[in-house]
């Protein structure tokens, strides 16, 4: 049966890759390149919309070795792929990277989803690319899309609970294949429909609607959206700071910020990351050594103590296995089980059981090998269909341990159902605590920040910015991110699974007692803060419009007073303020507040405001509090017609 699934997966993957590789001209696509100013009639073809919708489905699906959550689900990667589909991977990556920043601190645990970065990424990039929106505008539209996506998630979580009952019915009949099937077929069919249809419609019709809506807005309002796009990244960064900006690693955030600003934005994030690794090593040697960790004993003593405590408490472990076991699991069984879990852990994710049906699915090869009577099979299926949830990579140690216990039980060891359940329910929580901290709070944001930095960014810093036209995006950012995160996540998952099987609780104790995890987290804290600080400097854009008179001439307030003292001070101030505010306010509320402030700040209180989107006159610029692209009084660098929001010259406000 696995072969059939394999064919399906390969087919889907090939289809996506092939479509992305085929030049869009062959698909009669619309030109996504050089954009004329003024309203443009953009056409996303049926094929392209279908591929984009399929991509969004895949981002939530089990088919990509369970890695979709770390790859296609992220706007950085979604942007790159949408770019490939629409014919401009570089711009797509740029937009995806921009949209990703507010979602940097995204965490989904225990069936909770604050917003849907995948929807924001796939649909947002489509709307932006097809509508020729610039990255800041795309960012402010994207957060609303994120909320829409979470509705789809909620729907699926509720409906999948019903499918869990179908799996129960199969278990009652001791139908192993049936339980496996119920874990993916109904849930994924539903998910396909409920994901594909909205995104397909959005992709096909959305760009035109968004264009029309934007065209109806007065110019200052579209500026407001762009301003918002410059300050919303502060929320994403501050959300991430909630995880890592604490204790002895705090200074590294500021160092990263200063490094980027002082180098005028010329220091690549890869270089900063490399520096971060070196600093992490030094920090661990000099600073962390003084902060005593939990591991008082050395690693060796820790392992010894682990073995002792395990012998004292638990039953069957490796020793028994050698002594004439009648039924033995093969390595193939273990690998198959691991693969099934890695693919299908969330295939039927639902509020009632969370990963419960996925766990049962993963156990099917094990049950098939170990149990022969209908009663045994029924009992085994039912006990593994219960509520279960852990982090699906580091948490694999639970699965390995449980598999070993089942093997012993099948061979006659005195292990009752209660002990197996106790291990599952006792361990799944703590392993999730550690696992989520590792993968979602530490690993993913750091690698994403790196990828986003490589992907390119806004024309920023305090050098004379070019209006609208940003630096070209670099698809390498998305690719580097995908490769790194995939390798590391799979390595963690595989190791935890196999070690859990061969050493069980001793492995858990060993890892926990050795303090290895704490050291990794501290090192990641150094690296993460450094990269995050640099990213903050790069992506947060605040330009004051007002001027003051200096020696008789009108000079931009920010350029003449703030920048000479501390360039980037406003951006830094904003992110620190955001971090402080997030302690008191819900992120969603803050998003809305910032959006409102941005639009207000664009309102031309002091003058007539810009007559059109290409009105860069001094008078137009200084009529509001903030400006989206540059500090007024400094003329923009001469460029061709910018790819700024394609708004028609509209009426005065």
């Amino acid at each position, binding site marked *: 049966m696995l072969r059939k699934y394999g064919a399906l997966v390969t087919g889907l993957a090939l289809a996506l890759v092939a479509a992305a590789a085929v030049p869009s001209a062959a698909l009669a696509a619309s030109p996504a390149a050089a954009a004329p100013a003024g309203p443009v009639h953009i056409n996303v073809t049926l094929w392209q919309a279908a591929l984009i919708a399929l991509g969004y489905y895949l981002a939530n699906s089990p088919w990509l070795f369970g890695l979709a959550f770390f790859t296609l689900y992220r706007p950085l990667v979604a942007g790159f792929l949408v770019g490939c589909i629409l014919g401009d991977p570089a711009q797509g990556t740029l937009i995806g990277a921009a949209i990703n920043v507010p979602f940097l601190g995204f965490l989904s645990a225990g069936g*909770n989803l604050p917003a849907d970065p995948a929807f924001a990424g796939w649909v947002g990039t489509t709307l932006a690319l097809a509508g020729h929106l610039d990255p800041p505008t795309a960012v402010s539209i994207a957060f609303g899309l994120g909320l829409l996506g979470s509705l789809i998630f909620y729907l699926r979580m509720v409906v999948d609970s019903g499918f869990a009952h179908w799996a129960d019915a199969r278990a009652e009949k001791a139908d192993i294949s049936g339980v496996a099937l119920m874990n993916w077929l109904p849930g994924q069919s539903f998910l396909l429909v409920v994901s594909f249809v909205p995104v397909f419609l959005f992709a096909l019709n959305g760009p035109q609607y968004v264009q029309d809506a934007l065209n109806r807005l007065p110019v200052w309002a579209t500026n407001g959206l762009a301003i918002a796009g410059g300050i919303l990244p502060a929320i994403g960064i501050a959300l991430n700071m909630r995880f890592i900006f604490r204790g002895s690693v705090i200074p590294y955030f500021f160092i990263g910020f200063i490094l980027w600003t002082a180098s005028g934005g010329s220091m690549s994030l890869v270089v900063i990351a490399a520096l971060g690794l070196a600093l992490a090593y030094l920090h661990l040697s000099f600073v962390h050594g003084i902060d005593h960790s939990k591991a008082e004993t050395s690693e060796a003593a820790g392992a010894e103590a682990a073995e002792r*405590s395990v012998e004292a408490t638990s039953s069957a472990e490796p020793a028994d296995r050698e002594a004439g076991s009648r039924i033995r699991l093969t390595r193939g069984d273990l690998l198959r089980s691991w693969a099934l879990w890695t693919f299908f852990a969330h295939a039927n994710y639902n509020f009632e059981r969370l990963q419960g049906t996925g766990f049962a699915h993963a156990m099917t090869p094990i049950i098939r090998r170990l149990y022969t009577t209908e009663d045994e099979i029924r009992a085994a299926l039912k006990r593994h269909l219960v*509520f279960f949830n852990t982090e699906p990579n580091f948490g694999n140690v639970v699965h390995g341990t449980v598999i070993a216990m089942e093997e012993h039980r099948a061979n006659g060891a005195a292990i009752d159902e209660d002990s197996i359940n106790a291990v599952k329910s006792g361990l799944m*929580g703590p392993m999730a605590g*550690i696992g989520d*901290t590792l993968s979602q709070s530490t690993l993913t944001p750091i690698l994403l920040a790196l990828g986003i930095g490589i992907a390119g960014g806004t024309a920023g810093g305090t050098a004379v910015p070019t209006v609208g036209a940003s630096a070209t995006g670099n698809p390498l950012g998305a690719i580097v991110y995908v490769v790194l995160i995939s390798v590391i996540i799979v390595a963690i998952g595989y190791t935890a699974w196999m070690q859990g099987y061969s050493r069980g609780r001793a492995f858990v104790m060993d890892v*926990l*007692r050795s303090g290895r995890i704490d050291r990794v987290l501290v090192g990641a804290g150094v690296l993460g803060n450094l990269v995050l600080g640099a990213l903050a400097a790069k992506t947060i854009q605040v330009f004051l419009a007002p001027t003051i008179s200096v020696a008789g001439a009108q000079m931009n307030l920010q350029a003449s007073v703030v920048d000479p003292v501390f360039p980037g001070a406003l951006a830094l101030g904003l992110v620190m303020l955001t971090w402080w505010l997030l302690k008191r306010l819900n992120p969603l509320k803050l998003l809305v507040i910032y959006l409102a402030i941005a639009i207000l700040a664009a309102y031309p209180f002091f003058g007539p405001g810009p007559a059109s989107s290409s009105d860069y006159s001094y008078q137009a610029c200084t009529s509001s509090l903030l400006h989206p692209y540059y500090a007024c009084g400094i003329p923009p660098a001469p460029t061709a017609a910018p790819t700024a929001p394609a708004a028609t010259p509209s009426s005065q406000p």
Partner: protein
Amino acid sequence: MSLRLVRIDDRLIHGQVVAGWLRALGAERIVIVDDASARDEFLREVLTLAAPQGVPVEVAGVADGAARLIALAGTPESVMVLARNPRTVLALRVAGVPIEVVDLGGMGSGPGRRRLHKTISVSPDELRELRELEQLGTRVEIQIVADDRPIPFGSVDPRN
């Protein structure tokens, strides 16, 4: 002591608690009250080590836990209390621990259990225990992650 959070979660310490709540509350100590975990040496150690560095974790049975929490009441330390079920929290309350609010963070489903909201399901016994807590003056709320708005138990109680 400010009992920053008294949370019922059948998985005790896990992703949302560590990565979410701890940071949001700035709690300095975690006290886990659970008879089964207190008796199991392995589980006790895993729970103790699962919290991030710098946050001490204590695992105690109901009797010891009540005494400990009442003792901690005098200190200004900010404490997070975790329990697996309403029965434990009710026992603590009856023993005199000042619990103003109890948060239902995670209660898994199963046969005979009824889903109230997202990942919160209850058995008939637990419903009874939660209502008793409310009668004793403790506010019962559902708040799965810190960013959620708390939902009063009264609005999801099937009796209402």
